[in-house]
């Protein structure tokens, strides 16, 4: 079963948040939505779970009872304990009694939260709280799992745990989509979508994205065209969309960070030219 959005437009008043966005979320995979603040990641996910109604286009998603959602904000109730939070989520989705107990124990074990089962959510660290939120979103084995920046601000070890939980859900047959600002996670995803100012810049597997990337990226000490270069470590990289870099400049094999930045710059130049 493949879920997703087809040619979706979303506006809030005068502001267009999404332009003609088409995204596929197939079951059994983790799809990563990449983009900066304001790119439209949250709007995309909220449209997918039908929290926002699109102005145009079509949304393919299962019913609310078969969706698991973790918003960018908390995801758990601060005044309730870990166990109480999970029980509430289970109850809402119809997981009760012995089935709930079993599922809860298993989830807490996977998330490494068993020792904190009776601790109040407000007393958990950021990473642990996010993991709790993920547990609550998958307690009912949803067909579509949607997570908004689950790993932002979370420590590396918890991020690995989170990633493992998502991978498990995908391996078990759910369609999983998450937004992130961490490109290493995007590189690890089966399928990634790069958003910029409400447009899809590129999507596909990491290999496909790299293969389809137009132009070249060069490595320089100082920029030839300042509007097209950015810092990497101690050097600068520069993007030549038409591949017309001066031959003396060393060329680099672009990684995802290069690709994302380069495409953003290109889009901005486009928009500027048209304006």
């Amino acid at each position, binding site marked *: 079963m493949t879920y997703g959005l087809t040619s979706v437009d979303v506006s809030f008043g005068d502001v267009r948040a999404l332009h003609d966005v088409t995204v596929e979320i197939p079951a059994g995979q*983790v799809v990563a939505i990449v983009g900066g*603040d*304001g790119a439209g990641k949250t709007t995309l996910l909220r449209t997918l779970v039908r929290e926002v109604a699109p102005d145009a286009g079509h949304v393919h998603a299962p019913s609310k009872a078969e969706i698991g959602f973790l918003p960018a904000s908390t995801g758990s109730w601060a005044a309730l304990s870990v166990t109480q939070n999970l029980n509430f989520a289970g109850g809402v989705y119809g997981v009760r009694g012995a089935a709930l107990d079993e599922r809860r124990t298993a989830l807490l074990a996977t998330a490494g939260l068993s020792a904190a089962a009776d601790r109040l959510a407000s007393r958990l660290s950021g990473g642990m709280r996010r993991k709790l939120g993920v547990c609550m979103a998958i307690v009912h084995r949803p067909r579509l799992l949607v997570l908004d*920046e689950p790993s932002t*601000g979370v*420590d590396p070890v*918890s991020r690995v745990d989170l990633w493992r939980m998502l991978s498990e859900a995908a391996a078990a047959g759910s369609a999983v989509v998450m937004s992130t600002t961490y490109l290493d996670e995007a590189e690890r995803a089966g399928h990634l979508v790069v958003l910029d100012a409400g447009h899809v810049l590129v999507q596909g597997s990491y290999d496909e994205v790299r293969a389809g990337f137009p132009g070249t990226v060069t490595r320089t000490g100082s920029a030839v065209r300042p509007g097209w270069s950015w810092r*990497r*470590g101690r050097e600068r990289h520069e993007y030549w969309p038409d591949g017309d870099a001066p031959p003396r400049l060393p060329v680099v094999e672009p990684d995802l960070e290069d690709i994302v930045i380069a495409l*953003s710059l290109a889009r901005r130049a486009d928009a500027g030219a048209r304006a």
Partner: protein
Amino acid sequence: MSTKVVEARSVTRRFGSFTAVDEVTMDVAPGEVVGLLGANGAGKTTLMRMLLGLLPTTEGTVLMLGGPPRRERRRRLGYVPQNLGLYRDLTLTENLAFVADAYGTPVPALPDDLSRYADVLVADIPLGAQRQGAFVAALSHEPEAVLLDEPTSGVDALARATLWDTIREQADRGVGVLITTHYMQEAQQCDRLLLMSQGRLVAQGSEADIVGSTRALVVRTDDWAAAFSALNDAGAAVILDGRTVRVADAGRDEIARILGAAHVDASVEPVPATIEERMLVLAHQAR
């Protein structure tokens, strides 16, 4: 007489029976960008607060610009906390005016890409620009050292690169920078790294020093889902990487055995471990 901008000598901090920082010795030299890494609860924030003079040590000494932490010396430091430190219901310009007034310095000019947000409320500015604005405010009084707590959290790649431009600029001018981050690719941009775990400083130096002797294996197979499940169920420290599976701190034979028992046909090869995998191993040991 120390030439370091901030320095901790065998610093320990206890809260009751809990030791948050345990005999940590570190320093930041002028012009250096030092990355402070560690899981939550490792003691990074506590250490930072002691370096800023906001928290006294239980044992050990903290030196700020060569001397004990004092308010006059703290004026020569800059600090960007995790939640920015900007007033959300004031505009960027108003925030900068306030900071300039507080330090008695002239109001700093806004860089070009922020100028269009000059009179916009901070709450209405995109996160990347907010963080940039916080930088400008923290650097406005030309500090000799800057401490940054997760300055690029939640920010996109281009904005992150721009922030690092600023960090490098400052370092090139002789400012010492201490930065905490959870993003390993960002750690690679630092001159030197410090890894904390459970209050202790467990490694410092280059990325290779941090990774240390941690081993990692890559499992390649068509049936990645089965390989992942088998290894996960067996309790191995697995990370799913696209279509391959990475395993940290495990012997090759052990992994091959588990896969064989699960009837998964796969190749298993050793690869260089990552910083995350070192941290994963530390966490497993702690549990």
